């Protein structure tokens, strides 16, 4: 797999166009970058700049109309739908702005879900340890609507780290939280990130949040403003 400094995520001439009633619309155009293993990257940009689309393409949730995404040496386009699903199961975790907890499941069951899908030996024990770790040890049997926003996001973070992903995507993880809660969530996210050596790609419009990251990508009108900018070189 190469050295630690080798690219874990690569976007090559990545583009996304959709057809609307008013003609074709380019959402992303000619995106090129590579992210080394263990790096944390913030994708910055205003609303509608293409952040969420880029995240979707990088995670294999959507397919590009041009270019390639390579994760852990594998071209997502060549993998097919099932291959991408497998890659997600094995490699990728998610944290969302609106938490995306399943309302019918308890906090514990939400965290167990990726472990169960991956066939982990003791999903209940692992999940409850993780919830303990994020400070929800006494909320295991609570349903999402019985948790505050911050608690829901902590639960979602526990879920994201449950399968020990090598790559974590976070889409505006504090977007739905007040500043103080948001700060605690970010601290938790980065602490776990460091602990597990995860590569982190986070979409945000919050500059101060982006400062926590090793590297920043600015999107504007679907194009990268600073394709080469690197804040610091890191070795994880």
């Amino acid at each position, binding site marked *: 797999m190469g050295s630690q400094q080798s690219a874990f995520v690569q976007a090559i001439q990545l583009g996304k166009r959709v057809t609307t009633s008013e003609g074709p619309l380019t959402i992303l155009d000619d995106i090129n970058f590579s992210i080394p293993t263990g790096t944390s990257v913030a994708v910055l940009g205003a609303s509608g700049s293409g952040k969420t689309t880029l*995240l979707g393409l990088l995670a294999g949730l959507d397919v590009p109309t041009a270019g390639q995404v390579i994760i852990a040496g594998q071209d997502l386009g060549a993998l097919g739908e099932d291959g991408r699903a*497998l890659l997600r199961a094995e490699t990728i975790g998610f944290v969302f702005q609106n938490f995306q907890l399943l309302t019918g499941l308890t906090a514990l069951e939400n965290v167990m879900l990726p472990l169960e899908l991956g066939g982990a030996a003791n999903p209940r024990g692992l999940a409850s340890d993780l919830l303990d770790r994020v400070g929800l040890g006494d909320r295991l049997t609570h349903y999402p609507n019985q948790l505050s926003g911050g608690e829901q996001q902590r639960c979602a973070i526990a879920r994201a780290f449950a399968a020990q992903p090598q790559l974590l995507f976070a889409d505006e993880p504090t977007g739905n939280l007040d500043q103080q809660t948001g700060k605690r969530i970010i601290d938790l996210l980065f602490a776990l990130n460091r602990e597990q050596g995860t590569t982190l790609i986070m979409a945000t419009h919050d500059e101060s949040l982006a400062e926590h990251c090793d590297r920043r990508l600015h999107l504007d009108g679907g194009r990268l403003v600073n394709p080469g900018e690197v804040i610091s070189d890191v070795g994880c």
Partner: protein
Amino acid sequence: MANADPPIIRIQSQTSLAFSWRMLWRDWRGGELRILAIALIIAVTSVTAVSFFIDRVERGLNQQAAELIAADLVISSSRQIKRDYIQAAEQRGLTQAQTTQFRSVAVAHDRPQLAEVKAVTDHYPIRGALRIADAPYGEDRATQTIPARGEVWVEPRLLQTLQLNVGDTLQLGAMPFRISQVLVYEPDRGGDMFSVAPRVLMHADDVAATRLITTGALVNHRLLLGGPANAINDYRRYLRQQLQPGERLLSVKEGRPELRAALERAQRFLGLAALISVLLAGVAVATAARRFAQRHLDTSAMLRCLGATQRNIIRMFSLEMLWLALLASSVGCVLGLLTQLGITRILDQLLLISLPAPSLRPLILGYATGVILLLGFALPPLLALKNVPPLRVLRRDQTGAPVRAGLVYLGVLLSMGVLLYWQIGELRLVSYVMLGMLVTVLLLALGAYGLIKLMNRLRQRVGVAWRFGLANIARRPGSSVIQIVAFGLGIMVLLLLSTVRNDLLNDWRRSLPPDAPNHFLINVQPDQVTEIQKFFDQQGVSKPQLYPMVRARLMQINDRTVSTDDYESDRARHMVTREFNLSWAATPQVDNTIVAGKWWDKTDYGQGLLSLEAKLADTLRIKLNDTVSFDINGTLRQFRISNLREVDWDTFNINFFTVVPPGVLEQDPASWVTSLYLDAAQKRQLSDLVKRFPNVTVIDVAAIMDRVRSIMDRVVLAVEFIFLFTLLAGLAVLYAAIQANQDERRFESAVLRTLGARRPVLLRGLIAEFITLGALAGLLAGLAATALAWVLAAQIFHFPYQFNPMIGIARIGVGVAIVGLAGVLGTRTVLTQPPVVSLRQGV
């Protein structure tokens, strides 16, 4: 990635069993599966209860009907019953009795009278009971005995004709007999009602002493058999191989036509109830499954996001549904069994027949129904979940392409049709109802769409509450159409039930009213017709109508000589050898329906035309415009079949298989017949009648009519009970339809309340919405129910159905009220739940 393979296998094995169970439990706990399970349980409970009930009642009624041949199976032969047959029956442990019937002249006081003699052995009758009385037209009672040796039991008209009393002596051949009882009823009397001489019943061991049976004598020997169904069926199979020409097998279905008709109708009513319950439950399941799928879009997207493949998703949800189907079916089967046990306990007193133990067939039907219904109706929307793009976790507007479910639903309907046909065995009924439902769904959908469009235009002209309500309907045309269709089907079935319950069942009962004719007068001579009418007029009995008939024997069909060898069926072979009674009439009887050709007018009088009963035409393979030749009084006369008639035999009116126009048979020797209702007091005047017109024979059919009537009453009771389930299924559909877009409604209402809308305004909006939905659904359902009731009445049950527009309008009103009330009650939590809770939960 050397470890690429194992995880896929892990995911698949996980999803296949354990995970789907966990999903089932979690969804159940979350209340996601409740409506689905309830609908399914209702479906399976109703179908198994109905099926158990039909199964048991049908077998019970068949036992009743077995009375009509006095056994479960009868071998009828012109020769002595073979020793082999008797031994084979002994080996199978069957109860046996034998009868020997022949015509002979009975003599008393030197006066002869032709009699139908029947000699019977012990155990006769195996099914049913003889009824006897101490004096003519006196109180009768059931008996388990047969005449002792040296004694005979005779019909009252023999006593009248020969002017005898109980205790007198009657000579039969070489032996004198003491008349010890009056014979009132024998279960297997049967035969041609108009040609029978009075019955003399004697002990079989006395036959030899009469020396009446000599070589060449026309004798009918019968072996009557009774026993468990398996043994009887086994014996029937054995006998099919053995039967020789001249030997006939009679089973229950070949009993009297009027009873057969009653049983067939009974089965149809029960079948209809079962059929509608299942189809309705299917609609409820489909509606609830749609909501279930809607609420699992996020789950699917999240599972995809977490690495589940499309196949994993399909397997997971399919297995989850399979577990649910099996669990709900088990509950339904148990409930069905219990309900049916409970109801038979209640009905046992009324049924007066002991029902046989339930068989296992209904359980198979129950599970098959549960699995087919749920997988069939729930899978299409659930399969669409595989198409939910994982991108939905980032963009909530992504829902994925819906699965084209039309073909799947059609497949489900077909398989349900096959299942129900298997249970009910009425192809026409099943296909009419299924087709009716299908057409109704299409019409409801089309009509609903058109009406919604129309409604949208009205929006600008109404107040705020109504605008909100109408906007709600118009804003979600797809979901509104589905809701109207579901409501419409629910209401339609409820209306259809009330129609069937009130009109069809009553029509059926009315077809045999308390004053239906219970006596037949036969052998009336032409010059006695007016005198007989006058006689009854004087007695205060309404003037009876008399019908002429001429004896004839069928000789040729299309110039080809008729032979019993031309036919396979026992009925056909029997019909070609019997004597026909040709009648003439200017107009058809009111309970006759011309199904092919046309009835004659005045210009056809005197022509060789013939109107033939449709079933007989079918049995004898005679078609419209075929020619048939009858031997009438020694001359061969040819007739062309000018029309085919369906006859309601269970009305007990005088009806003929064969009718010709006036002006054809008037010169031939005819006798006249009539039927009339006589109550207990009027019955006593019969002795006067017999004295004045000694040649006239009176036949009392009150006993057989009571049988038919009691079967009808039982069936009506059973059908009404089964309709309760159909009602439940209808309510489940309504409930599922109300729940269908509850989430969306709750969210919108919360938004409006946050924006300052007051609850009364929202409530009025809801009322407006549901009254409109109810009116649209009610209107379409009322029309559909009326049409379907008409088709059922005309095509399946053969009743004249009168459409009453006022009742139609009232029904639409009921539809509006049901949906309006149920809708508002069902959605009131939309108004009571704090907006913040709804907003938090999202759509």
